């Protein structure tokens, strides 16, 4: 029996985010909340292996009660159990505090029902930090493989997993003992269209609520929420709108002149030179 755990976060759909021009604040209302896309792909892969090997998939998420919606979506996609760790005291958590709460929660689930493989998303599209996954691995002293794009093999008897991870340069094929923690890129699996019975089950599903008072985990108050977060927001702002660049009208000055003017601008920043030099080098390498 294969037991996979997937950490799932609810995020605002950043592609729909609007900023209030006056206040410069996020306009959150109207912005749909979605399952962090990377987590969805990670979940899809976990479910794929569950169906192949037999077993179950447990979801863990830290956040307000509204995250229950996202856990239901996870059930729709084939997860069997969903744990939502939720407490006012967790508010204002940075990645260090988040990784603490998730690590302690996963530890408890592991006691109840030993976990073979832990799936995280590569990053959350709201924070884009990509820190929580490795953080949890460190706290649980588990091997971590980031940017996983393919699981080649899960060997439950031999207690090992073989994973492909993608870097700028190449794909590394890594073997590591179980249990292990992966942070997954979108390529790891496509998100399937859930069967109707799974959807119906998810609509009826009530996530387990774990809190500081009710337990079952006992958290160190000094390590959760704002208290447990070394980083502090110093200030927030909207990025200066890139002031529209100069325009050259080919109809007036002719294509050649317009192109020259544009390329000169690119050169001025050094970018064009960099690009061409780099390409030159690459071409040299290519030549035998």
């Amino acid at each position: 029996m294969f037991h996979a755990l997937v950490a799932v976060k609810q995020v605002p759909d950043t592609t729909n985010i609007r900023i209030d021009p006056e206040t410069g604040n996020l306009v959150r209302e109207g912005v749909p909340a979605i399952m962090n896309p990377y987590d969805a792909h990670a979940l899809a892969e976990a479910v794929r292996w569950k169906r192949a090997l037999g077993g179950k998939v447990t979801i863990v998420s830290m956040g307000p009660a509204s995250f229950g919606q996202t856990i239901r979506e996870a059930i729709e996609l084939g997860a069997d159990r969903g744990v939502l760790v939720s407490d006012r005291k967790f508010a204002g958590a940075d990645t260090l505090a988040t990784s603490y709460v998730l690590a302690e929660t996963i530890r408890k689930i592991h006691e109840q029902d030993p976990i073979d493989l832990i799936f995280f998303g590569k990053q959350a599209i709201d924070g884009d930090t990509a820190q929580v996954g490795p953080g949890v691995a460190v706290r649980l002293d588990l091997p971590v493989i980031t940017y996983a794009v393919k699981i080649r093999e899960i060997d439950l008897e031999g207690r090992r997993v073989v994973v492909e991870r993608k870097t700028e340069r190449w794909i590394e094929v890594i073997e590591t003992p179980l249990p292990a923690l992966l942070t997954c890129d979108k390529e790891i699996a496509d998100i399937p269209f859930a069967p109707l019975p799974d959807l119906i089950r998810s609509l009826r599903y009530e996530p387990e609520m774990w809190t500081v008072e009710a337990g079952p985990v006992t958290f160190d108050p000094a390590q959760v929420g704002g208290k447990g977060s070394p980083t502090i927001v110093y200030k927030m702002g909207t990025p200066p709108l890139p002031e529209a660049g100069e325009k050259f009208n080919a109809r007036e000055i002719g294509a050649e002149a317009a192109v020259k003017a544009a390329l000169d601008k690119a050169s001025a920043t050094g970018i064009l030179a960099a690009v061409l030099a780099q390409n030159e080098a690459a071409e040299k390498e290519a030549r035998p």
Partner: protein
Amino acid sequence: MNHNDEKASFDVVVVGAGLAGSAAALIMARAGLNVALVERGQKPGGKNYFGGAIYTHAIAEVLPDFMDRYPPFERPVTEAGFWFLGEDGMVRATVQGGKLKNSPADAYTTLRASFDLWWAEQAQKEGAFIIPKTTVVDFLRDERGQVVGVMTDRPQGEIYAPVVIVCEGVNNLLTQKLGLIDHDLEPAHMALAFKQLISLPTETINARFGLPNDQHGLAVSVLGDVSLGLPGMGFVYTNKTTVSVGLGVMLDTLAEYRLKPYEVLQRYLKHPAIAPLVQGGQLLEYGGHLIPEGGWRDMPKLYTDGAMVAGDAATMVNALHWEGTNMAIIAGKLAAETAIEAHAKKDFSARVLARYEERLKEGFILRDMKQYRNFSKFLETHPQFMGTYPAFLNDALGNFFSAYGKPKKQLFSDIFSALTSRRGLFKAAGDFISMGRAVMGW
């Protein structure tokens, strides 16, 4: 290991969580039936579009205490009527006061995304089970061909129920699959309506539309030079912090003149009488939606063994008044009552479901639609009737100005029922305007 063995079955399946669908689901759930309300959108209302204003008399028939349930209304309609656009100016013919002073008001402007969601939630509160993100693609039938459920687009997508109420809206694919109608609605009987939702500060809206505060709202139909001089009928609705501006053109006109809807709308929005109203606003959304105009002539058979159809799917729209939500809601309610009766009788055959049509006949819907039916016949036989438009206009305006306190809907139909032509209201409106131009020198 995967709980896919369980088979989904309910007492009734409602297709489409729009106005008609949620109304039907609510009534049946309240009566204790186990209702599945299937909606293809992420959530109810997400993709739905209308002008628009919604009529409370219909809501009250389903939810007498609707006002205590915080419906997401925008503004009560306290001023309604018509604007006639000339090249650069316009003649306003609007009503205030009288029934428009009622509270709760007869009509409220609203946005479908929030209203439909609320409407479906009321059904949910009564126990209806909403199944979102799922599209019904076909029906399940028994050996006798009686409908016994629906097939959705999902794997293992069957949902079983002895009776299905189809509230799929204007794209009547399922109605056709039921064999209740054998064709798409004809372009000549279909209006494509498209609108922009433009955000403006509440104060600006109040000032530009002459509204004392956001408890006053405007709902007008716009006739005349709205679309490159081509026939078409526009509308303007004021919401709290947005204005809905749009217009509808018959599909065949669009095709005939190769019009791009967006361009027509742009022209309309640039009209000297319209532009100042929306100037400086931020475009929030742009969308289009069909309105079935055919009325009685296009009306499908409304029921078959194990299934009924309600709302736009059954062309229950009165384009003259941009009315459809109320008919949809009432029709949904009547179909629901019929389904409840069928469950009591344990008989879901066409014979029992026929009561649905009778119920409609007793109500205002079919009567209205018949009236228009007769009328378009009259037109076909009296082409010269067109010549009498100007007279109508005089009466019309005259009527309007002497009409304070006269029920709005009734008033409109008095005056304008006479204007539906074989090719739909919009053409008529066009003739009407060009005539008006000639005679009155607009």
